[in-house]
C-alpha cells in the first residue's frame, strides 16, 4: 500500500493538529482490524478530528486526493465493518465523545458520534430517563457505530432497535458537505418527505460520517422483574420462549445462554449459575408495578411447564445488575475457553429456534469445534460463538465452514444472516443468497445517491466487493 503523500498529510495535520494524524506504519498496526480479527489490513492513515468542521475539512481533502475514507468509532464491530480493505484514511470519532445536551422535557439528548452508548443513559438518569438500545458492548461502543449498524441489544425486544431511537443526525457526506437528516435539534418530531434518516441507519458507514445525533430518551420503568430460569436442555428453553411470546407477554428482554457459555461466565464472574444446566433464560419484565405480578407468575408457570428445573428472581437491584453484567460480558468471557472466536448473528423465526439450535450443535460435532451460544432468544436472533485458535490454519478453515453452514441454515429457515452486527466484510458472500439481484441493485443505487464514487467505507456489504487478499496477497488468511 502506498503511503499517503506527505503534502496531503500536512494538509490533514493543518486541519486536525499534528498529534491527531497517525501515519507511521508502526502506529497504524492497531487499526488493522476491529473485534473481527480474521481479516486484517492497516489503513494508510488515521485522523482524529475534534469537530464537525474538522471532519468535513478532512473528508474534503481525502475527496480531493481520491482517498477512501473509513468512519470508525470504538472498533467493536464483530463483522469487520471498519476494516480498511484497500487502505484509505480512517476517520475516527473517538475525540468527539461528548453528551452535548439533555432535554428532559422533550426527552431528547444531543450527542457527538464518539459518545459511548452507556454515557447517554448515565447523563439522563437523573431525569429518570434512559437510552433504550443496549448492545452488549454498550460500555464501549459509540452512538455513531450504533447508527451505522442499526444496533440491537437485549432490551430491543420490547423497545425496538437503534432506528426507533434516533430522531435525526448530522452527517458529513463523502464529498465534505454537511447535511442534517430527520428531526433537527430544535425541530418537531414528525417531518415530511422520504425518510432518509431511516435509509442511512444501518448503511454501515457507506453514506458518510455521522457527526452529531439527536436521540430519543425513554422513561426508566417503574419496576423490573428479572428472572433466571434454569433448564436441562436448550430445546426446553426454546419452547418456553415460544410459549411466553405466544401468550402475548412482551418481556423487556428474553435471553438464552447454553451450558458451555454458562461455565465460562461462571468461571469469570462467580454469579452462582448452575454448572450442570443445559441452558438458562434471563427473562426481564418491566413497566408499571400494577400487573407485573400476574405476568411474572404466568411467565414462571410457562417455564415450569417446559421442564424448567428452577426459576429464580433477582431480589435486589444489585443482583439484577450482576446478572446483566454476566450476560453482556459473555462474549468476552469465552477468552477463558479459546484464544479466538468468530460469532454470527443470524435470525430465524422464533418457532424455528429449537431446530436451529439442534443444527448448531450438529455443526459443532461435525467440525470438532466448540460452539457455545448466548443470544437474544426473544427475537430469534442466534449468536453461535465458534471457537478456534488462529495459530492452527486447519481450525480456521473449519471455523469458517461451520459459520457458513449455520448462516445458510438461517436463510433456509426463512430468517436472515444478520440481526444486528452488520454484513461488513464477513458476510458479503451471503448477500446474493439472501437477496435477489434486483434487491441488491436497488440498495446499490441508494448507496450511490450518497456516495457516487463509492469511496466511503468501500468493499463492504455488496457482493463482488474486493477482499484484503485481492490487494495484498501475503495477507491472505490461510483459508
Amino acid at each position, binding site marked *: 500500500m502506498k503511503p499517503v503523500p506527505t503534502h496531503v498529510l500536512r494538509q490533514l495535520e493543518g486541519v486536525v493538529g499534528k*498529534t*491527531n494524524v*497517525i501515519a*507511521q506504519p*508502526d*502506529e497504524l*498496526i*492497531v*487499526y488493522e*482490524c*476491529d*473485534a473481527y*480479527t480474521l481479516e486484517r489490513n492497516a489503513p494508510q492513515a*488515521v485522523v*482524529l478530528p475534534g469537530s464537525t468542521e474538522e471532519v468535513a475539512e478532512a473528508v474534503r481533502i481525502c475527496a480531493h486526493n481520491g482517498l477512501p475514507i473509513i468512519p470508525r468509532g*470504538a*472498533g*467493536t464491530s464483530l463483522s469487520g465493518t471498519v476494516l480498511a480493505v484497500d487502505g484509505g484514511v480512517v476517520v*475516527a470519532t*473517538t*475525540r468527539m*465523545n461528548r453528551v452535548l445536551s439533555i432535554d428532559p422535557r422533550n426527552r431528547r439528548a444531543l450527542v457527538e458520534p*464518539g459518545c*459511548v452508548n452507556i454515557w447517554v443513559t448515565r447523563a439522563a438518569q437523573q431525569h429518570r430517563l434512559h437510552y433504550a438500545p443496549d448492545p452488549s*458492548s454498550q*460500555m*464501549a*461502543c459509540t452512538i455513531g457505530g450504533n447508527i451505522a449498524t442499526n444496533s440491537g441489544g437485549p432490551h430491543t425486544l420490547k423497545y425496538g432497535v437503534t432506528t426507533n431511537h434516533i430522531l435525526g443526525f448530522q452527517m458529513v457526506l463523502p464529498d465534505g458537505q454537511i447535511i442534517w437528516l430527520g428531526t433537527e435539534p430544535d425541530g418537531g418530531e414528525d417531518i415530511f418527505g422520504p425518510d432518509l434518516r431511516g435509509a442511512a441507519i444501518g448503511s454501515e458507514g457507506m453514506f458518510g460520517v455521522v457527526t452529531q445525533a439527536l436521540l430519543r430518551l425513554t422513561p426508566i420503568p417503574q419496576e423490573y422483574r428479572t428472572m433466571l430460569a434454569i433448564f436441562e436442555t436448550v430445546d426446553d428453553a426454546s419452547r418456553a420462549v415460544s410459549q411466553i411470546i405466544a401468550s402475548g407477554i412482551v418481556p423487556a428482554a428474553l435471553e438464552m445462554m447454553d451450558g458451555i457459555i454458562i461455565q465460562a461466565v461462571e468461571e*469469570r464472574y462467580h454469579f452462582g449459575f448452575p454448572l450442570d444446566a443445559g441452558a438458562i433464560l434471563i427473562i426481564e419484565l418491566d413497566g408499571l408495578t400494577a400487573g407485573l405480578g400476574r405476568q411474572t407468575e404466568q411467565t414462571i408457570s410457562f417455564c415450569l411447564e417446559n421442564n424448567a428445573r428452577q426459576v429464580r428472581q433477582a431480589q435486589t437491584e444489585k443482583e439484577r445488575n450482576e446478572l446483566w453484567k454476566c450476560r453482556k*460480558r*459473555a*462474549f*468476552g*468471557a*469465552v*477468552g*477463558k475457553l479459546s*484464544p*479466538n*472466536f468468530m460469532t454470527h448473528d443470524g435470525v430465524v423465526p422464533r418457532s424455528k429456534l429449537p431446530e436451529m439450535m439442534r443444527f448448531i450443535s450438529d455443526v459443532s460435532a461435525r467440525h470438532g469445534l466448540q460452539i457455545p451460544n448466548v443470544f437474544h432468544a426473544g427475537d430469534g436472533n442466534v449468536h453461535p460463538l465458534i471457537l478456534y485458535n488462529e495459530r492452527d490454519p486447519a481450525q480456521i478453515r473449519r471455523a469458517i465452514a461451520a459459520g457458513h453452514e449455520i448462516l445458510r441454515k438461517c436463510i433456509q429457515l426463512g430468517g436472515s444472516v444478520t440481526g444486528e452486527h452488520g454484513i461488513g466484510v464477513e458476510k458479503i458472500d451471503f448477500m446474493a443468497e439472501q437477496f435477489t439481484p434486483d434487491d441488491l441493485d436497488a440498495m446499490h443505487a441508494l448507496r450511490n445517491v450518497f456516495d457516487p464514487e463509492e469511496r466511503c467505507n468501500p468493499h463492504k456489504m455488496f457482493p463482488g466487493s474486493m477482499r484484503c487478499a485481492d490487494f495484498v496477497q501475503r495477507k491472505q488468511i490461510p483459508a
Partner: protein
Amino acid sequence: MNSIQLPPFLDRKKSDACVHCGLCLQVCPTFLETGNENDSPRGRIHLMRGLDEVKFPLTESIADHIDRCLGCRACEAVCPSGVEYGGMLEATRHAITQHRKMRLPQQLLQKVIVERMLTWPNGLRLAVIPARGMRRLGLTKLLPQRLRKMVELIPQKPTRFPQAPSSRQEKTEAKVAAGIMSGCVASVFFPGTNQATVAVAESSGYSVDVDSGSRCCGAIHAHSGNLPEARKRAQAMIEFFENTEIDIVVVNAAGCGSTMKEYPQLFNNNSEWKQRADQFSSKVRDVTEIVEYLPISLKKKRPDHPRTTYHDACHLCHAQHITEQPRALMQEILGNNFIELPESDVCCGSAGSYNITQPELAQRLGARKAKNIISTGAKVVVTSNIGCIMQIRASLQSAGAQDIAIIHIADWTMQAKK
C-alpha cells in the same frame, strides 16, 4: 532507537485470553484523553502480542505507547475474559528495558530519581530540602520544566513530625497483631498519615507491634518492569515480616498494597518463594479493609463536616477491588454530605512515578480530575493513596481551587474523631 526484534516474553496461556473485543477502551484514561487506539489497552495488547510473536520489531513509538500506560488497570476490572493486563505490562516493560537504549536523561530519571531516590527515605529527605527552599524563594521558575513539575508536587512541610511506632514493640495483649508497612515516600512526606494508620488499626482492635520502617516493597520497580529488583525487595519484605508474629500487615498506599498482594506472581518460577509469598500476601490488608471494625464512637454522624467526595485510587479499586468499604464509612459519617465524584475511578495521572516520567499526559489527567472535583462542589476530597494526594493537590492548585482540601482516608478518619 533502531528497530529491535525482542525474544518472546509473554505467558501465552494468559495473553491469549484477549479476544480483541474492545470493551476495555472507554475506561482507559490515556485513550479517553488522546482518542488514539495505540493508547488503549486493546491497542497495547495488540502491540505486546505482535512484539512477542515477532510479527514486527520494537520501535521508538511502540515503546512510547507502552511507556504512556499508567498501569492503572482499569481495563482489567472490566475485561470480560479476565486478561491479566498488569502482568503483561510488567513483562513487556521488562523485555523492553532489556533491549532498549534509553536516552541519558531518561535513564537518569528512571534509575536515579524514580528507582533510587524515591525508595531511599534519607536521600529523599535531603533532596527535598533545597527543593522546598527554592520553592519558598520562588526560584523554581529557573528549573527545567520537568524538574519544576516534580518540585511542585512536593507537599508542604508537615508542621510536626510525629513518630511512627518504633520497630518491634512488645506484643501487648491478646489482640490480633498487626504490622504496619509505612512505605518509603510516606515516611518522608506524610509521617502523620502513617501515624493515623496506626491509630486506625489500634482503634479497630488490633495491636500494632511491628513497623516495616522505611523498607521499599518494590512496587515502583515492578511497575516499571525492573522485575529482578522488585523480586529482591519483595524477598526482603517477606523475610522481615516472617521474623515477626503478626497476623496482618496494614498498608496505606494502594500501589504498594496491590504489589504486595501480588508478590506470588513475581515468583512463578520459584516454588519455595512462591509459597512464602503466598503466605505473606494473604496477610496484606489495605487500611480501608479494617475500618469497618472501628468503634461506633468513631463512626458517629458529623453533620457539621463539609461536603466531601471520594477519589478511587487505581490500585485500590481496580487492582484490589476495594470500592465499597471507604464509601460505607464515609456515608455513615457524612450522610448527605458525602457526594460521589464523576469519573471517580479514572486515574488522576499520579500512577506511581508517571507524573515524573510522563508529565504532559499526567498534567492533562490531573486537570480532568480537578474539573470533576470542582463540579461536585465538595470542599474535601478523601482518597487512600499518597501519590494521588500529591498529584491532585497540585492539580487543584493549577485549577485555582486550592481551597479544596485533599486528605488520606486514615487521616480523615482520625480527624473525624475530633
